[in-house]
């Protein structure tokens, strides 16, 4: 099946700054791609090009087989955009905002009104629907913004940092809404600088830094590339830490490290649960008291920090090949 979004060697520069240095992306229909990166990495530029707001300097991009430059007019009726700046009209009520967008999608007045009511219900904005949007909380504004992007039932949705600036409750509320959308078959490209958000929502993640995709894959693939697993040991008595380090080194897996001041030691490894058993026996034999012993997968924070620090010191092409 043809991917819903195809991006090839897409480039955009602002003066001497390469906002996008030739990125490639594919998003399969009905899935969420998380475009993950720090501020200024090129996430918003990519979304603006894909939503026809900005013309690329080079390369090409297609959404649902429509070229973002050549077929821009046709494409606009197939996509929804919710931005980090929550583009709702503060002077209009929530209902008026949605009706206006409906009219501009060329729905008939009655249809636009019906659609507005439906979305107000679905996004739990009923109580506030007839108040000016400027009185809304941050979370409500984002929900209204998201509702506005859905007026036309677009098959492809672009969410540019949808939860930036929201409190944890607002963020979790919005995550639920987005998850439900994808269950309905919508294809989503989501940009975020929150690793947790990408982990929670995205089927696949592309990590972008300084205008380049430095890694791409499923959440699990990314975690595996970076370091397999980590064996973590916390010694009960910190005086025994050096002994414990020697014991870990003796396992022959690699160089163990002190991971903190409180007796936490870590050993990167590719081995499995058997290693935990072996480590426990070794500590027991050496008379080292262990408070905690666990095998954990790297978090996306580990992934992200490893990849981006790599990219800034090594040539981008060799930093981390895309996973396919």
């Amino acid at each position, binding site marked *: 099946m043809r991917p819903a979004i195809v991006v090839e060697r897409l480039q955009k520069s602002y003066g001497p700054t390469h906002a996008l240095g030739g990125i490639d992306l594919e998003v399969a229909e009905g899935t969420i791609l998380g475009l993950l990166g720090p501020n200024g990495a090129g996430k918003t530029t990519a979304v*603006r090009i894909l*939503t*026809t*707001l*900005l*013309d690329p300097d080079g390369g090409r991009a297609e959404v649902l087989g429509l070229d973002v430059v050549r077929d821009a*007019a046709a494409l*606009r*009726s197939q*996509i929804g*955009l919710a*931005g980090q*700046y*929550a*583009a*709702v*009209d*503060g*002077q*209009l009520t929530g209902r*008026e905002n949605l009706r*206006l*967008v409906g*009219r*501009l*999608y*060329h729905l008939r007045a009655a249809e636009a009104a019906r659609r507005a009511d439906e979305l107000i219900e679905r996004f739990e904005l009923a109580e506030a629907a007839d108040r*000016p949007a400027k009185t809304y909380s941050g979370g409500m504004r984002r929900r209204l913004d998201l509702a*506005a992007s859905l007026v036309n039932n677009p098959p492809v949705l672009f969410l540019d940092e949808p939860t930036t600036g929201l409190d944890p409750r607002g963020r979790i509320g919005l995550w639920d809404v987005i998850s439900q959308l994808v269950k309905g078959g919508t294809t989503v490209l989501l940009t975020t600088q929150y690793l947790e958000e990408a982990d929670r929502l995205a089927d696949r993640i592309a990590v972008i830094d300084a205008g380049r995709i430095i890694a791409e894959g499923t959440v699990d693939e990314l975690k595996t590339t970076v370091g397999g697993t980590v064996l973590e040991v916390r010694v009960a008595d910190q005086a025994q830490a050096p002994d414990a380090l020697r014991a870990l080194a003796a396992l022959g897996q690699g160089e163990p490290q002190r991971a903190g001041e409180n007796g936490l030691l870590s050993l990167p490894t590719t081995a499995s649960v058997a290693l935990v058993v072996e480590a426990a026996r070794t500590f027991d034999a050496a008379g080292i008291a262990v408070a905690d012993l666990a095998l954990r997968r790297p978090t996306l924070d580990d992934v992200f920090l490893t990849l981006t620090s790599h990219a800034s010191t090594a040539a981008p092409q060799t930093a981390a090949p895309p996973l396919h």
Partner: protein
Amino acid sequence: MSAGITTSRLRWAIADGLAVTGRNLRHWVRQPQLLVFSTIQPVMFVVLFVYVFGSAITVPGFTYQNYIIPGVLVQSVAFGSNQTAIGLAVDLSGGMIDRFRSLPMARSAVLFGRTLSDLVRNLFVVLLMTATGYLVGFRFTGSPLGAAGAILIVVGLGYALSWIYSFVGLAVRNAESAQAASFVVTFPLVFASSAFVPLEGMPGWLQAFAQQTPITHTVDAARALASGLPATRPLLFALAWILGILAVFIPLSVSRFRRAL
């Protein structure tokens, strides 16, 4: 077939423009402070100009009210049309323009909607000022058609200036700069004109400039129409200016809007 498509595109462009106009007019009504002050200000201008300047100026053939009110109307419209730049700059920085540009609506609709709502606002202000003028002694002494013509030419100039300011607003992108830029342009144009005093009293070089401006032609046309004097010459010049400005700045602004910002 292609004519049919063109007609339906035009119909949608008009519908889109009207939807945006409605949205902008709601803004005006929703902000009571804005409504109150934009109402008080023109009333204040009429009263002050008539009582402060009016008495110091004697122009043969006019009561001073009839001389100065058309000038006050034009200055009000000229300064007021920078609202177009401010409105667009606010929509740009607030992300509304991005929202609009991502929708399958006509590319011209945001600008036509903006200038049309500013036209409605200008018309309201001009009618209000004219009514106030009547309280302080202004009278239309020509035909009813002339009276309507005087109002229309003033509002028409405001509409043309709105298109200049829509280009300014899209170029400078923030409300403060838009306001500052428009003041620098509008102030000399309004004061170096026949709006408040006869040109004959100005130094020759200033007169030469002031005689050519759209402000002077519009004021002269409105004044002649309001008082039932021969208006053809200034009216033609004013119309030429208005159409000329529209012919240049509509395509310029629309292409600026269409281009990725």
